């Protein structure tokens, strides 16, 4: 397999008459951390949704590990090794923290419904394995103490972390994070940055992330893609992006 781990080619998404994404070309090399930034409504989340099969792209291709996965259904893409978190936290609120993570282990279940109902065969071993893995991930991410709590009862920052733990339970090759530090205070953000870097090297992850916190993005990403109104306007290292005039005009200039 040569070429990048992941690639989109001229990806388009339209909602009725509104084109939310126009011609996104994105390349992510194995082991990299890539940022996707842009003003509100730029189409960043839409890009993630199109990549992970939550919305259907209207044109273009998504290529992962040399395979064209355009238009595949979300669970199929997830099982191929692309896991994601959601900007507007989407946990299974009524399940416990550990159950939330165990849900993502379902794709690795080898026992049949009949083995489950009779409690025989691979049922016991599989359940133990899934629980153990979930608990391991929770302790990695620092949520083991609240494993038995209902997910919806967690504070905001912990819910964001739980989203990451749940995504990791899929054993992803590519992890996509949609605004992982939104709503976190500066010290939480620094802590999360350390955690992410640790996971990145320990689990050999490739990461794509959307974030409005420029300090965070610039300090963690190898390369950054900027889009505005669905249109890609820049691609480069944090240093290049910081000094790109189009970007400053479209985005960075906006806030200050």
């Amino acid at each position, binding site marked *: 397999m040569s070429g990048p781990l992941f690639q989109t080619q001229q990806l388009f998404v339209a909602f009725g008459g509104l084109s939310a994404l126009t011609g996104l070309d994105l390349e992510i090399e194995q082991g990299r951390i890539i940022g996707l930034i842009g003003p509100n409504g730029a189409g960043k989340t839409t890009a993630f949704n199109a990549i992970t099969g939550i919305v259907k792209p209207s044109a273009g291709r998504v290529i992962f590990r040399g395979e064209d996965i355009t238009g595949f259904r979300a*669970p199929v893409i997830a099982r191929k090794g692309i896991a994601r978190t959601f900007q507007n936290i989407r*946990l*299974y609120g009524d399940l416990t923290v550990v*159950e939330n993570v*165990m849900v*993502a282990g*379902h794709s690795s279940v080898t026992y049949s*419904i009949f083995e*489950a109902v009779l409690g025989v065969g691979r049922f016991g071993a599989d359940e133990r394995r899934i629980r153990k893995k979930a608990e391991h991930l929770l302790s990695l991410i620092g949520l083991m103490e609240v494993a038995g709590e209902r997910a919806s009862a967690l504070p905001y920052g912990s819910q964001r972390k739980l989203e990451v733990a749940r995504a990791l339970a*899929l054993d992803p090759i590519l992890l996509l994070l949609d605004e992982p530090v939104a709503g976190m205070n500066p010290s939480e953000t620094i802590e999360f940055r350390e955690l992410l870097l640790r996971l990145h090297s320990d689990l050999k992850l490739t990461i794509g992330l959307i974030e409005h916190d420029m300090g965070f993005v610039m300090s963690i990403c190898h390369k950054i893609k900027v889009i505005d109104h669905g249109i890609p306007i820049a691609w480069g290292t944090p240093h290049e992006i910081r000094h790109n005039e189009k970007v400053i005009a479209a985005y960075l200039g906006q806030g200050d």
Partner: protein
Amino acid sequence: MISCARTTVTRDRILTASAVAVLLLFIWFADSTFDAYSIRVLNFVAIYIILAVSYNLINGVTGQFSLEPNAFLAIGAYTSAILTLTPKDKAAIFFIKPMAWPLSEICASFPVSLLAAGAVTAFLAFLMAVPVFRVRGDYLAIVTLGFGEVVQVVAENLISVTNGSLGLKGLYPHTNLWWSWGICIITVVCIVRLVNSSYGRAMKAVREDETAAQAMGINAFWIKTLAFTFSAFFEGVAGGLMGHLITTISPKLFGFLFTFNLLVIIVVGGLGSTTGSIIAAILFVVGGEFLRLVDEPFAIWGYEYPGIPGMRMVFFSAILILVMLFARSGIMGRNEFSWRGLFDLTRRLIRGDLLGKHGASVGHNVIALSARISQLFRRRG
């Protein structure tokens, strides 16, 4: 720590096994000493538990609102009745139009007919699930509601199979306490195990957030189809049990009322809680027998109550409305019975500290419900 968890598991298994043994002992006792009326009520309790826990699997656990129990009961009842009736019985019953061959010659034992009832119902559920779950949205309720009507019309008009509106009479009363409670226990065990497996977690994930479930590799289509088919199987078996309990079945019998009753049961019990479904099913059947009172005339303090047939339904509807308004989580919320929970509850009862720290416990729900109802009356007075 691990050995501690192991001993708890062993303790719970022993307790569960003892509870089942006590239940079987009670059935044996009831079977040999109770009068026919009480035995009939107990049979209905078992059948309603089977129906409620399976209906709760699709509606409560998987969160797919459906309205099928009456249709699936009918299919199960007809399937098993057609199989257990002997060729001679069939020739006698079908006098408008003879029964179609080979059905007229087929004859099977009761357990085989129950399995067939479950299998046929599950198969039809599967056929329905495939188109319905392919698209996203709440089509299941509409489709299952329509299916109930279709089943009635077919039962009325497919005379060479169902004997039309005359129905099937003189079924052998196979259903006794052993059959009904035996199958009830099997159903509850199967469904509890399924819910506690990874498949059950996937069902709950689909209920909580279908998109997030899909993004975690769960094929929501298959999981919903599995839940629907699984619950259909047991609803079909319950139909077979019911047919051989009341011994006469006709199309009119399987009206929407069954579905409505079951909806009341699973909502009052707490949508999603198998324990709640069981408790509410028992309360419904036994309470319904007591409420027969209001259907019949009686005199109280010189006032002549004429007796209004169907008055019981008004009560059930009122209970449903009250629960929806004031205690939406029902008796159990989404909690399940566990031995540890029972011990904790007893300990708290003894200490007189019922609310404890778990706000959403059974005690809390019951108390909240009664407090709100009493508040309602106090405000009036």
